[in-house]
């Protein structure tokens, strides 16, 4: 720990004020999201606790406000503040899960492609090409459509989450695969890999034990940026109607709902979740930016 505090990375971190602010911001937002069930004043997922008569109450500093609802309520009478906490939680969980799945697929395929080379590499990279022709939105729409086609009516509340994760993961893995493949091709020619081969260690172990830890730097950077991207993409998908269901709103769903109330003067329904999303994405991105520069030895 002491060593970590004394490291160059940590000092470059402290030197960049923007990053410190971003990290603090991220930490606070993450905490708010994950502690939502304990700190949110209301439970927006508990339908029995919300009342339509509380709908569209403005934030407390405006006329006709209700002191129970600090940031007002949405069109169903859900507390905006609690909705944002819970929504952020869902957005983050979707983001995290999709990034983890994407990273897992991408890293495995990238390692194999880079290490094996030749035909295996060509096949994996062509699959990646096919994948690249389908951005996340298309994939989500297609998966949603296919799921409907195959399972008939599906239960949105249950499946939306998985559909989102699969489609986001499917559209993100290529980046990891390409990056890892590139670094693997460099690493595999390094002498430590040859040393391991001379010892007689099998390829799989070499890939996992020796190469993998040496190619994770860039992966970390992609992951932070993808986390932000996943959250925004999920928001877009909500707008298209294939995001989280309105009964379990993510930040994106909240914005998509609030969208309808932008002109009618109930701006808080869209603007507060929008601000929360922007803050979250901005902070995570700023951290990712800094990490990208800090981990790049060429820039030191």
């Amino acid at each position, binding site marked *: 720990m002491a060593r970590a505090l004394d490291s160059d990375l940590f000092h470059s971190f402290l030197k960049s004020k923007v990053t410190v602010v971003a990290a603090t911001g991220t930490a606070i937002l993450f905490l708010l999201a994950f502690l939502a069930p304990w700190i949110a004043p209301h439970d927006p997922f508990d*339908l029995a606790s919300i009342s339509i008569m509380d709908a569209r109450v403005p934030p407390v500093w405006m006329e006709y406000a209700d002191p129970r609802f600090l940031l007002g309520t949405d069109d169903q009478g859900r507390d905006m503040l609690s909705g944002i906490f819970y929504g952020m939680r869902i957005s983050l969980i979707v983001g995290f899960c999709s990034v983890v799945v994407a990273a897992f697929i991408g890293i495995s395929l990238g390692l194999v492609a880079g290490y094996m080379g030749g035909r295996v590499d060509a096949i994996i990279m062509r699959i990646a090409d096919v994948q690249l022709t389908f951005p996340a939105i298309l994939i989500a729409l297609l998966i949603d459509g296919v799921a409907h086609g195959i399972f008939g*009516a599906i239960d949105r509340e249950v499946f939306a989450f998985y559909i989102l994760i699969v489609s986001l993961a499917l559209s993100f893995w290529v980046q990891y695969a390409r990056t890892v493949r590139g670094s693997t091709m460099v690493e595999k020619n390094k002498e430590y890999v040859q040393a391991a081969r001379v010892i007689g260690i099998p390829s799989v172990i070499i890939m996992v034990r020796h190469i993998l830890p040496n190619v994770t730097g860039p992966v970390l950077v992609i992951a932070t940026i993808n986390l932000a991207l996943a959250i925004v993409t999920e928001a877009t998908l909500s707008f298209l109607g294939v995001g989280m269901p309105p009964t379990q709103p993510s930040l994106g769903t909240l914005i998509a709902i609030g969208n309808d109330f932008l002109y009618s003067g109930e701006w808080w329904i869209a603007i507060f979740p929008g601000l929360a999303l922007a803050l979250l994405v901005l902070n995570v991105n700023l951290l990712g930016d800094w990490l990208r520069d800090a981990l790049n030895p060429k820039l030191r």
Partner: protein
Amino acid sequence: ETLKFAFQGALNALDPYSLNETFTLSSLGNTYEGLTRRGPDLAIEPALAESWEIVDPNRWRFHLRKGVKFHNGSDFTAEDVAFSVDRVRSEGSDLTTRVPADAKVEIVDDYTVDFVLTGPNPILHYEWDTFYIMDKEWTTENDAVKVTSASDTSANHAALNANGTGPFKIVSHEAGVKTVYEKYDGWWDEAKHNIDTVEFTPIGSDATRVAALLSGEMDMVYPIPVQDIKRINDNAGTKALTGPELRTIFLGMDQMRDELLYSDVKGKNPLKDARVRKAFYQAIDIEGIKKKVMRDLSNPSALMVSPLLFSKSADFERYPYDPEAAKALLAEAGYADGFSIGMDCPNDRYVNDEAICQAVAAMLARIGVKVNLNAQPKAKYFAKILASGGYDTSFYLLGWTPGSFDSWNVLDNLMNCRDESGKGSPFNNGGFCDEKIDQLTDEILVEIDPEKRDAMIAEAFRISHENAYYLPLHQQSLAWGVSDKLDLVQRADNQFQFRFVTKN
């Protein structure tokens, strides 16, 4: 003058018999005309038929208007009427019910046509304002006699072009992008409008549609979200027109299956129990929905038909909103702890449809019923809950406007028994079956005395109300956004007719 307007959906087919859907029929009503038409107050007026008489109970005689010319210049005659009747009843038409299948058409002379029925039918011509007459020659010449139906893989001439007798002709049409109309100078009626060109653009996004009106790019847009009405009224140069619509929004429940498709209750169907249905009814705070979701632009309804269409509406009253009573009813029925149920809901069909469903879900949650809401775009929604989808639903929200503006249509379509494939009342998705209502429906059809007829209708509605076969919610309001430059008529059937428009 040029009129620019936007609607939320697209005008896909130009064949007047392809699709029985309000907007399509409304759009084509500016180009085509029927034997009758409806005025600003929906009263039936003569159109291509100058007058008609019931020669004997089974024979109706229509005297056609003389000197009417189609847009392509050919004359309108009895031949065209007979041809249109055949065509509208042919395979592929979506409007086959406009003329009873067993009715015969007899051409008396060039300008007189007789309809021979197999039994009396006092409402034969009620829907004929949207049964448009086509030109026999034009249709035959262009090889478009066959109606372009849903199963056709290519569209014929009539689906891509239009040739009617109406006040406007279509000069260009790109489905989903833009349709341009031009004034028809040879129209038989005196033009009260001052419009030369009409440009229609579909704009799917509510916000964009409203923005287009606010920024002055559009003269008229509809529908507008209820929440934006205030803004449109506050904005200089635009106003919102609202008015009662004939459509009734209601909730339906599966009362046919022995076990619900989407519920945690196994082995039995709780919705077959009238107490459960009534509990649902009383759990719904309709005033709350009216105030908060509909922003007072709705009329809570105890009936499955608009009070404007039925004289005895005032006799019916909703069961009061009473969650405690609802809980008691549930407990009585053996569901003291509630249960869960899947609910289907469209999200782009009716005014605030999804928000209503959400509100209902929250209200039912208060009496212990957990609703899993599945809100989808209308195409997917209808494909699921209607006959074509095998009535794949347990609990759903639907809206109904009787096309004939008469209660019989409601009984016939929504309240009679049906079998699994939909024979009977095809839109009775819940599939409840009450012999008494079926019997009344048959009697009402042939009853000519209005007093007796209304009494029988009231009886049928009373049975439905008492058993809570449906949970009627409200009649929604029309909401159009209109530029101050425009003077127009907002008809309760939500049809937008250019002939009522003046622009200055």
